[in-house]
């Protein structure tokens, strides 16, 4: 904890740059997220939006700039990285549940092994969150036996079991059938209403309008535009944003 300003921010990205080999994926990204803020990140594919949020829990390394999460700067230091990851939950496009463990074991694994929680307590917490995502009855099944929407809700419950301060969502509904998108979004909306700090990469514009404090539009590794949702959708400032919005909204 260096000073008061970093303490106040949940996530701070300052002049973050990243390259994949020669390819410059992230260019001078600056982003401050205050606790409780809900941010939706959108943009065309390949714009670096997933890479950006994956930098926040260091699934990707940035090569230049500064990333500070909950007052901890991300560096090579593995201890700090694990410390950040404990407090930052993440949901993936393809859920990435552990197929060899039951739903309940998926949820209790990290609390037991990372937080050293007794098994009984971890089970109780897991059941609590499984109830919140409305699938307590599936606790003893294996992930392969569930539908995509159910799997994604388990993945959300799994992250919540670590009681994270920040949740990252990397296109959580892109791999789902239209009917299942709603059940996942409902859970996310509920989470947002409870005041969770959230960064979501998604193209669900209805969700953005409903819960986001801020919408960020990225293209070619840069933040093109950011605004509160109504302004963003009704009155986009940048031509690139206008083009993108016309393409995704006029269907």
């Amino acid at each position, binding site marked *: 904890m260096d000073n008061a300003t970093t303490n106040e921010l949940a996530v701070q990205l300052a002049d973050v740059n990243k390259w994949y080999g020669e390819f410059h994926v992230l260019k001078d990204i600056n982003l401050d997220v205050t606790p409780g803020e809900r941010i939706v990140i959108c943009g065309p594919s390949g714009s670096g939006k997933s890479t950006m949020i994956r930098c926040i*829990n260091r*699934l990707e390394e940035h090569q230049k700039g500064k990333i500070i999460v909950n007052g901890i700067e991300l560096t090579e230091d593995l201890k700090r990285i*694990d410390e950040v*990851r*404990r407090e*930052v*939950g*993440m949901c*993936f496009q*393809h859920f*990435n*549940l*552990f*197929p*060899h*463990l039951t739903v309940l074991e998926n949820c209790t*694994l*990290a609390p037991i*092994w*990372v937080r050293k929680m007794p098994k009984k307590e971890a089970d109780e917490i897991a059941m609590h969150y499984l109830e919140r995502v409305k699938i307590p009855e599936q606790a003893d099944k*294996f992930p*392969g*036996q569930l539908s995509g929407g159910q799997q994604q809700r388990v993945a959300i419950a*799994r*992250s919540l079991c*670590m009681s994270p301060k920040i949740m990252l969502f990397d296109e959580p509904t892109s791999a789902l059938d239209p009917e299942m998108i709603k059940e996942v979004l409902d859970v996310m909306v509920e989470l947002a209403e409870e005041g969770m700090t959230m960064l979501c990469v998604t193209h669900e514009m209805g969700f953005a309008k409903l819960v986001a404090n801020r919408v960020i539009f990225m293209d070619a590794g840069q933040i093109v535009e950011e605004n509160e949702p109504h302004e963003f959708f009704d009155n986009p400032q940048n031509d690139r944003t206008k083009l993108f919005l016309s393409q995704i909204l006029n269907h």
Partner: protein
Amino acid sequence: MKNFTLLPDMPAPIVARGIVGWFRKNLFSTPWNSVLSVIVIYVLYSLLVPVLDWAIFSAVFTGADKSACEGTDGACWAFIGNRLDIFIYGSYPAEEYWRLKICFALLLLSFGPQFFDKFPYKMPVGVFSLTAFPVICYFLISGGSFGLVDVEPERWGGMALTLMLAYVGIVAALPIGVVLALGRRSEMPVIRTFCIGFIEMWRGVPLISVLFMSSVMLPLFLPDGMNFDKLLRALIGITMFQSAYMAEVIRGGLQAIPRGQYEAAKALGLSYWKSMGLIILPQALKLVIPGIVNTFIALFKDTTLVLIIGLLDILATVQAAITDPAWGAVGTEGYVFAAACFWVFCFSMSRYSQHLEQKLHRGHKR
């Protein structure tokens, strides 16, 4: 209006049922099939009858020397019965056989229960068979402590030696293979290079030359007076050799695990070793059970090569016994017996692996 009435179930016509139906369907469905079936049945008959006659009907099962087997065309199993002790215990002193018997019994008790799903103490028994069991056996067999007579390793042999080599090889090669496989995928260049070098070196030489080197060349490089046991050197050679193979089998499994699994484990804050131990390896090892057991079986059979450095495993004791003039020409019987012994162990390993695959499969069932 017509009423719908259920027709009673009728038995199927005789041609489709029972043995007759099976024969018609599988062996005589077309004229060409019938001809083939008749030929195959004839060939099988003409092969099986003499084999069974040799192995069972004309065979001699008891007797003390070759006079018992004179005047018959059948197998002289009396020879096997007469030499069974040597085949099993090697030249271990007969009055100390009970020590090996205890080891065999422990082996059976510690691995037998793993075949039964309902057995409640699998975990402790499994841990016992991997930790305490080899230690107990070592002290029992070698003696020299706890008031037991010292039996030097030169006298260990037969089936006992084969099992010893195979057991230590299997139990040590798997964890070393896991570490090597992880090391080969490590992001640290020093570790990666070392593991690649190790694996490629051991895979690139024949086991025979490894054994030769361990028994003949290694002592030349060691300082005088430092001369550790030949059996131990062979064991190390076999273990290193097989762990290189094992590492590649396991690496195949590691590569089959999607990147998302690694990322999910990382994102939850699991450390490298925890995510490997809890997430990646359980899935990867399960995927490559057939390959692992394949390597185990190869290892088990490769132990016979130790006879070239003068260790007398079961095959070597059989080979020595068939040259005994007291028994005449009993080579076939001896080799059939040795082959049968190997087959029993290899087949049990194969069955156990299938059992394990089935048991662990449920996690992925859709």
